[in-house]
């Protein structure tokens, strides 16, 4: 048995675009244990979703390795890929477009089970599907309905039931609550945490909502333009963050404390592009602390146990 459930090593995903190569995911390394959640945060376009999709092999990785239970699952194909997929599933961001509009809810959940031959007969699969839908809270009367008859929160529950259909060990949650309303969001987050407790699932939770990620994660990874700039325990991240980008990101969250005005770290300019990036820190053009040393390639350093930072001036500025 391997030490970690999931191990991602120097994973890279580049897209060819007319202007050159888009370094959507660039050299990401992390591990995840069973029953734990890693949150991935960053601005839109920083490669969070691409990372999740590349790990579960919805896209081929350009370079790097993904190990599941110690077994190399990078770029597997055919029968092997089908086996791996049973262990790794995804809940998509948009519950409106990720369900087949012409398929009944029950069929949507049963299909992967029959497809993977997890069950011999349709009857067995149906029993299991009903059990899962009880678990995630899809009402009995809705199981023969079509997706358009359900609201966003219920559809997302169906999406979760479908991800659970093959009894996976690891689920990528790609912004599962960002399309939902606030009160529904709380219901879905609680459901995900209950399932984790009872089934020992590991999650990779991709989101740009920092209060959600704080709520659900054990470790948090901050990404900027395809690169990991900081990764550590969630409490450490909010109390003792070291990278200037993390500081700027956290200080931009509007505080609900009405008596203390926000102390913001001002960021100048927009997020730049990850197409043909220059070597060196990609945050340097917006960073208030940037010096010439930042134009050199940055290495990820472990400054405290389980606290990784990719900033050459991290000690100086803190």
């Amino acid at each position, binding site marked *: 048995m391997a030490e970690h459930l999931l191990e991602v090593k120097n994973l890279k995903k580049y897209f060819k675009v007319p202007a050159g190569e888009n370094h959507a995911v660039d050299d990401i390394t992390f591990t995840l244990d069973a029953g734990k959640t890693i949150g991935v945060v960053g*601005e*839109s376009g920083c490669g969070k979703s691409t990372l999740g999709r590349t790990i579960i092999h919805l896209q081929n990785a350009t370079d790097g390795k993904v190990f599941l239970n110690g077994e190399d699952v990078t770029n597997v194909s055919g029968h092997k890929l089908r086996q791996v997929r049973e262990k790794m599933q995804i809940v998509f961001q948009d519950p409106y477009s990720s369900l087949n509009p012409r398929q009944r809810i029950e069929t949507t959940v049963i299909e992967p089970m029959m497809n993977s031959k997890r069950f011999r007969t349709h009857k067995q699969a149906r029993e299991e599907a009903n059990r899962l839908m009880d678990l995630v809270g899809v009402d009995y009367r809705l199981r023969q309905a079509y997706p358009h008859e359900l*609201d966003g*929160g219920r559809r997302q529950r169906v999406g979760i039931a479908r991800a659970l259909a093959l009894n996976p060990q690891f689920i990528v949650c790609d912004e599962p609550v960002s399309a939902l*309303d*606030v*009160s*529904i*969001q*709380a*219901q879905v*987050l*609680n459901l995900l*945490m209950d399932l984790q407790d009872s089934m020992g699932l590991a999650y990779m939770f991709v989101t*740009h*909502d*920092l*209060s*959600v990620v*704080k*709520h659900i994660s054990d470790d948090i990874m901050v990404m900027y333009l395809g690169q990991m700039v900081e990764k550590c325990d969630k409490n450490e991240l*909010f109390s003792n963050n070291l990278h200037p980008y993390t500081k*700027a*990101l956290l200080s*931009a*969250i*509007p*505080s*609900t*404390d*009405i008596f203390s*005005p*926000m102390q*913001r770290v001002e*960021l100048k300019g*927009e*997020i730049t592009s990850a197409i043909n990036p220059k070597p060196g820190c990609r945050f340097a053009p917006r960073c208030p602390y940037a010096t010439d040393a930042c134009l050199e390639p940055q290495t990820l350093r472990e400054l405290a146990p389980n606290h990784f930072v990719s900033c050459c001036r991290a000690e100086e500025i803190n």
Partner: protein
Amino acid sequence: MAKDIKRVSAQQRKDYMRVYGNRKKSSLHDTYAEKADKPFLEVKDLEVIYTSNKQIVKAVNGVSFQLKRGESLALVGETGAGKTTICRSILRILADPPAKMTGGDIWMDGVNLTDLSEEEMLEVRGAKIAMIFQDPMTALNPSMQVGKQIIEGLMLHNDYTPAQAEERAKEMFEMVGIAPNRMVEYPFEFSGGMKQRVVIAMALACNPVVLLADEPTTALDVTIQAQVMDLIRELRNKLNTAMVLVTHDLGVVAQNCDNVAIVYSGQIIEYGSKESIFLHPTHPYTIGLFGALPNMNDNSERLTPIAGTMPDPTRLPDGCAFAPRCPHATDACRTGVIPEKEIAPGHKIRCIMRDKEA
């Protein structure tokens, strides 16, 4: 390229003058400055219905609020609560049909907007009351240079020459932090945050006295959101603009608003100053809403969602619309109309259970 803008704008100006050239200036002009203390915008008993499939959806059911100059009010609530409909009916830009304003008045500086003709409304929209729409991707005309889109409004509402209008548009672009040489670009050439800034520049170009901001930052990342809210605050301070901010982000409310109205099923169920709502939320729905939101300052393991969902707006329950989901509901909550009660100065709720306790 700059010439291009002038030429088309002049043509547009001609068109506008042909259609609207002989408009008289309405009584709305230049009378605002002295009346700082009086409510400037007053919405009274607003009611809006949508008709679809012969069913009647009661979207707004008797909403009233007041706004002074420079003040800001947050409308907070779930999707479908009627927040956007309230904003749109102030500007009278609801599509009719299916929407219809069935009751209520909207007073702005002594003029009832509901009495104005469509032509008089044209002078109000954009010039006196401007709106920032929720989705910057769809609020801009995709086949028109962004500079022209701002100049269009400026020419309509002011006696500018094309050159003056372009000058003013340049100023606005600089104010929102976009290089004026990008005025000749099309919306697809901008990122989401920049498009939202163009929409803000457009909304503020004619120095409106009321700004309706419909979730101006929901589609944006936190860092860009902070920049956009800073910008709105700065411009409001400069122009002393009142604002109605629609949002469900309580953090944005805490940092930007004076008063808060919690909207549920087309009614304001709790209204008060920011301090009274944040420190003493009283209506069960408000308390539920605060509990359902993940809070950065709170380390609790679980959220406490509000059970159930919003009632079907075609079949609103009798009595309190929140009663089916409310932990404190009694039979008395399910009949009649729930009156509004003031439980502290300026702090009003619609709940018969909680106002007894208070």
